[in-house]
């Protein structure tokens, strides 16, 4: 994830909510601002396009519940 420049690069406890554009195996393409990033979805199975994932250090940690 490309973090907000105002925030910590290391981000122990920083994470970004991002909407899934597409899913390809264990990776999802998520929209972050005007860019897209790839994140691992190993820990959030059944991810679908349109979900909003909480992403940190290149992986999704959780799905935001309101989206389904």
């Amino acid at each position, binding site marked *: 994830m490309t973090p907000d420049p105002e*925030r*910590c690069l290391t*981000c*122990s406890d*920083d994470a970004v909510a991002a909407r899934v554009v597409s899913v390809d195996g264990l990776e999802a393409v998520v929209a972050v601002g005007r860019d897209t990033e790839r994140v*691992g979805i190993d*820990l959030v199975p059944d991810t679908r396009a349109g979900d*909003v994932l909480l992403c940190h*250090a290149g992986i999704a940690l959780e799905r935001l*519940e309101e989206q389904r």
Partner: protein
Amino acid sequence: MRYVDEYRDPALARALAAEIRSLVDPGEVVRVMEVCGGHTHAIYRHGLEELLPPELELVHGPGCPVCVIPMGRVDDAIAIAETDGVTLATFGDMLRVPGGGGSLLEAKARGADVRMVYSPLDALALAAQEPDRHVCFFAIGFETTAPATAVTLLRARAGRTPNFSVFCNHVLIEPPLRAILETPGLRVDAFVGPGHVSTVIGTDAYRFIPEEYGRPVVVSAFEPVDLLQSIAMLLRQRAEGRCEVENQYTRVVRREGNRRAVAAMAETMEPRADFEWRGLGVLPASALRVRDAFAAFDAERLFTLPGARIEDPKACRCGDVLTGQIKPWECGVFGTACTPERPLGTCMVSSEGACAAFFSYGRLRRPREEAPVGG
């Protein structure tokens, strides 16, 4: 933007600030520790202390992973980086953390191959792209970040990437909280719990705080309204005579956390006997090491490391800042010998560090606070 705008609503923030004012008595002091560096950063960035009554004091806790890494571990990382044929990859802020023998950025200037990545998966990809080099990921972070390292180790084993390793420095949130709670003369009345660590470990992980130490906890998200609501929830507990763990960050944090993430961590890593924390000393079972089953990817078994214990510079009071004993500006070198450009201590390196956050956003408040009474 959804999930951001509604949590920055000024009217809502003012209403919560008014509620907080109504829940404290004039002249009393209620000390609330925000454990997480992300919260510290948000508090300064949004000027939340300006909205709070003087009776409510925020104490900045130890939850910045950069800030708690001891200098000796940075020197170990530099030793790995300066090994022939090795590329050391890590998060951006770690490059500037001073060890006893300089920083990784200085090692890079001397010719070491040090690269910044946003994810351990990027480091693994680097290893696949450059099979003639060994790529070591310098892993730091609490339970928020450890799952990414766990996933990377699992993928490294599945993909049989022989030229990849992890220098594991992941730390756990419970031991430093216990150390703080057992500090003699502790003056913290309540805790704002970390949001994203809790996404992984769940809110039940903090039950020991009310049950064993009699302090309430509210797990909080990171926007201004979130933090104000969490503080109001803590004060409501007090007003109603309750003392428990509550969850303000319900849009993502579950009581049990993410079990897959916890399982991935447990499969790949195990607690160390002890680990040195900056400012807190050596804490038992407070950090993770790579498990035997993943020994082929464990930098501590692949490299000979100095493993030295290095005292912090005497003038630096990061330890006192990390345990909430002093405010950043009360350190003698704050803003003079120690600045974000030339940090002496780790709290000044990461933007989540209390000193760096205060340096960047809070300095305008100091003259008013320090103005002599009646002067």
